[in-house]
């Protein structure tokens, strides 16, 4: 073993080919994280709230929204292929069947939508976890406060925004941090759906996938490279640590009362 100093890190950041791959993967991770935080978490709060206020079928919804989480990633990948396969996929066949021929697409083969499809699939798989965490927190909201707000004539929206939401702060912070870490360590489903090389034009590439490809695959100039892989995972870990600390700081500022 010889010491090559910061050569591996230089390669990640400055080698023209490698830095493009790295930036693309990092961009995908961040884009997924943004969607998770700004789309999935509001959705999770909404679903949890609907179940919390006991709309019809709430017990079944809690079960069924959580259900995809217990399905193994390779079966999720299978479902994704089954629905989105251009030839035999359910979606294209349904679209053809109801005459919407112009909407037929190659889905994961189409670089402009492949990423968003993947996000939908991952979201479907994991959305229940955040939801049940927030739901468990909702059960701890002191009921007398909520009742007082009802007696004082607060509307449903006011009650939610001004009375109930502040009590959810701990679980929402937790879900934001956990989702972000989950977003930055994304591997299973992109690997199964998009393959080792990250799909068409690298649209389904993620940092962890890049790490796996160069460490255990043979994509690093035709050989496996533990050293280069280690450099990538150090970078990934640093990013995760920074994001987690940053989020904690932002939240503690935001909720300082």
């Amino acid at each position: 073993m010889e010491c090559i100093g910061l050569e591996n890190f230089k390669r990640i950041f400055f080698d023209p080919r490698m830095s493009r791959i790295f930036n693309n993967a990092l961009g995908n991770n961040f884009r997924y994280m943004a969607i998770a935080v700004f789309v999935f978490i509001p959705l999770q709060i909404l679903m949890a709230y609907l179940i919390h206020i006991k709309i019809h079928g709430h017990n079944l919804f809690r079960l069924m929204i959580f259900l995809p989480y217990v399905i193994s990633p390779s079966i999720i990948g299978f479902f994704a292929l089954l629905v989105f396969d251009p030839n035999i996929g359910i979606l294209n066949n349904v679209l053809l069947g109801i005459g919407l021929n112009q909407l037929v697409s190659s889905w994961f083969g189409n670089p402009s939508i492949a990423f968003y499809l993947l996000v939908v699939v991952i979201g479907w798989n994991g959305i229940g976890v955040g939801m049940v965490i927030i739901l468990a927190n909702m059960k701890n909201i002191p009921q007398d406060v909520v009742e007082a707000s009802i007696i004082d004539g607060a509307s449903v929206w006011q009650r939610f925004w001004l009375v109930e939401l502040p009590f959810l702060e701990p679980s929402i912070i937790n879900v934001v941090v956990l989702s972000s870490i989950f977003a930055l360590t994304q591997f299973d489903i992109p690997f199964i759906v998009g393959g080792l090389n990250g799909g068409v034009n690298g649209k389904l590439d993620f940092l962890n996938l890049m790490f796996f490809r160069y460490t255990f695959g043979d994509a690093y100039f035709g050989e496996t490279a533990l050293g280069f892989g280690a450099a990538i995972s150090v970078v990934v870990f640093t990013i995760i640590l920074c994001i987690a600390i940053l989020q904690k700081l932002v939240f503690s500022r935001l909720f300082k009362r």
Partner: protein
Amino acid sequence: MYKKKQGLGGWIATILLTLYCLIAVILIGNMIISSFKTKHDLLFNTFGFPKEFSIENYQQVLIKDSLYRNFINSIFLTVASILSLVFVSSMTAYGLARYRFKGRQSLEVYFLLGLMFPIQIAILPLFVIMRTFSLTNTFIGMIMLYTANMSFSLFIFTQFFKELPSALHESAIIDGAGEFTIYLQIMMPISKPVIFTVMTVSFVQIWNDFYLPLVFLAKRSLHTLTLAIYQYLANFLAYWNYVFAAATLALIPVIIVFLIFSDQIISGLAAGSIKE
């Protein structure tokens, strides 16, 4: 407390959520039904009921492709890992909750950090360690990994043991019980619900785990069910009638466990992530 009668908005929400939940029902239902179709039937009658129920796919995957071996691998690995995990994590938690010693606090924080950082981050050092001790491609190595990845169960156990009255412990000592006897004959029986939660949650996670087996179980005869299905998927179009059968076999145990123990799994997962 909340209005019993549901307004228009509530009904719209019910309908939308029902449609959303139907996705899972249709996908899983379709998978199970299609697993009984022959390839020809599947090609021309993709979404309907099978013309005739054939178990040919199951025969092919289970016996000819020896998926039964992957099935046994998965069951063995999951059960052994869960037993080892419950044993080690409950003992550790008992020690952390019961004794006051130097560095206890930091040790607890150290274990809790594992709740935040997934095992993927540490995969490379793990790989090097496992390879050095020739533990790659062995179930022992995998069981050790799953046991070491015990932050979640440790957290649940520690919370539980901390809430137990210390009188329980003291009276047992007065009665002359040794520490291990107290752990085994008093602590274990009363923590049955917690053990249950840990077992069910770990079952789902270990049974479905994809990443660790992918990295550490390269040998084909050691593949778990998730890996076996992945192998089929790599050649999806050629074998898609078999994938239905294989996926059904992999999904059925976990769905059954989930439907029976959903409360434990859901509340356990939620409890493991609300700290603060």
